[in-house]
């Protein structure tokens, strides 16, 4: 049932033993409670230990974990009365981007997120979370729609990147992303972004320019995938682990750099071990972020957003 990552092998072994023990005690009636609880404690300690010092590469693997809660999981647990809205009004409907109106803690919100899909069929339908231009144009449209009705926007980011395809290029992938960034910057309503898994490059920042940018503890956000970076700068894709270190793509690093505003802690062992409590924690953090922005008028929200990005990278005058 669980699918283990390479570095989780010691945990997998003990959990395997635990499974066996439970079966054994069921079948034989022999009470092995002591041994079971000893092993349970051991798993717990190991998980805590491992997950408190994940390397950037390990975080990359966790961020991409197939059992990690995806955009639609967040929507179904956090948003009530969700009403999906489709299409870019120009070419098509891109299911890599889910968007729609709903209620977050009673307030109407516009939710726009990238969905990777959680089984083979879903992954194909959602194109593994890699949007075509239509996805970004739909997002731009929904941002403008939210502005028109003064509805706050929540974006959920989880994508390996924008889709690299012939049609995507022909229909203006780069223009679609640029316009989406422009729309995120421009709208006179609160925008809160949450990076839930993989924040892959231009495809991620297209939805990632916000008044508050939050990031799940084990999510990553990077200008290029560690593999891509390794193959270009080190000329060896096998050095992805080294590249992941150098890129500073963890939530902790990005917070220190001022690129994100907050980190949402994940349960012990990562989001994929407890989706419900992960999403609940995200919910509280989002509630706080929206509450902070309440009371600011449209111009102030827009100005604050711009100022925040203008300040990034500016050097203190001496």
């Amino acid at each position: 049932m669980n699918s283990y990552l390479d570095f989780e092998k010691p945990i997998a072994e003990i959990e395997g033993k635990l499974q066996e023990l439970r079966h054994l005690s069921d079948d034989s009636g022999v009470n092995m409670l002591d041994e079971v609880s000893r092993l349970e404690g051991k798993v717990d300690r190991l998980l805590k230990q491992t997950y408190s010092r994940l390397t950037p590469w390990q975080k990359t693997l966790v961020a991409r974990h197939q059992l990690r809660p995806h955009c639609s999981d967040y929507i179904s647990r956090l948003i009530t009365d969700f009403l999906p809205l489709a299409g870019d009004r120009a070419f098509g409907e891109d299911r890599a981007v889910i968007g729609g109106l709903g209620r977050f803690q009673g307030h109407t919100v516009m939710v726009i997120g990238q969905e990777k899909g959680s089984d083979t069929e879903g992954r194909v339908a959602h194109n593994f979370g890699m949007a075509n231009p239509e996805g970004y144009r739909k997002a731009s449209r929904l941002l403008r729609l939210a502005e028109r009705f003064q509805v706050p926007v929540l974006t959920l980011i989880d994508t390996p990147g924008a889709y690299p395809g012939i049609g995507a290029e022909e229909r203006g992938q780069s223009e679609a992303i640029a316009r989406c960034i422009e729309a995120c910057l421009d709208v006179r309503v609160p925008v809160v972004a949450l990076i839930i898994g993989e924040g892959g490059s231009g495809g991620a920042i297209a939805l990632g320019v916000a008044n508050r940018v939050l990031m799940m503890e084990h999510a990553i956000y990077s200008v290029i995938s560690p593999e891509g970076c390794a193959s270009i700068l080190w000329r060896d894709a096998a050095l992805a682990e080294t590249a992941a270190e150098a890129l500073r793509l963890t939530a902790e690093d990005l917070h220190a750099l001022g690129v994100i505003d907050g980190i949402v802690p994940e349960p012990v062992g990562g989001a994929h071990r407890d989706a419900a409590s992960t999403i609940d924690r995200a919910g509280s953090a989002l509630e706080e972020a929206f509450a902070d922005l309440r009371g600011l008028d449209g111009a102030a929200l827009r100005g604050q957003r711009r100022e925040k990005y203008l300040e990034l990278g500016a050097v203190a005058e001496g």
Partner: protein
Amino acid sequence: MSWLERFARPKVSGLFRKPDIPHDLWEKCEKCEQMIFHRELESNLRVCPRCDHHMRLGADQRLALLFDGEEYQTIELPAVDEDPLRFRDRKRYSDRLREARSNTGHDDAIVVAHGKIGGAPAVVAAFDFGFLGGSMGTAVGESLLAAARLAILQEAPLIVIPSSGGARMQEGVLSLMQMARTTIAVDELKEAGVPYIVLLTNPTTGGVTASFAMLGDIAIAEPGAVIGFAGPRVIEETIRERLPEGFQRAEYLRDHGMVDMVVHRRKLRETLSLLLSLLRDKKPAAEIISLHGDAPSKSDVKDEPASAGAE
């Protein structure tokens, strides 16, 4: 010191110098492989006289090509944290920067200049591909903001000439953030009513294309320039198909509605001068001809608002 004083100070070394003549007097065209005499190539603006291939220009050559009398002044690039991640791959990023500076004579992958085009002031920000592949990091983002503000201050149009492989990986996610920051630069221009023109040259790809480069009021491309988001190799590996002929080239983009025009280098200055004058001198240059047949006399035109008011 305000940003204005900081960047509006001209750089003494920024005044244009003719590039040194290279030692080898013949150059090979990368497209048709013909050997071309150096002087012939230069007088032809580095366009192959045999096959019309547009060879790459450095930032200095770009600026000399566009400004009247090859005269312009560059501005000092704003100060930034040069190596925020203390990045090191096979080489230190700080060493790569040092090398690029000594090879190009520029502080970073962009040069911002102001002067006159077609007799009227203009600001130009030209990328230098020779500087780490024209990649966009914090310095480039900050320079584009400075260029936009200079254009607004001078009420002069901004022409940006990307030649870039995209974001600068050595600055990690901070280079990604320049996509947002350069978009703000574009929005500031738009709010000020200042024309923003992009001249897409070979190559314009990645994060540069997916931000300011595709947001021009007018988009012009040089013939044959590769312009796109994803690199051709990445696309081929993803879709496992051969790419169509001319894919991601300037002409292909024009045919797909992504740029306004593809302009030969020889016609660039003329085209830009005309465009800028059309955007500037909006009064009719000649008498208006009525759409309703007879040309109106001047008194007719004058009377119209008055009679409308009387009704």
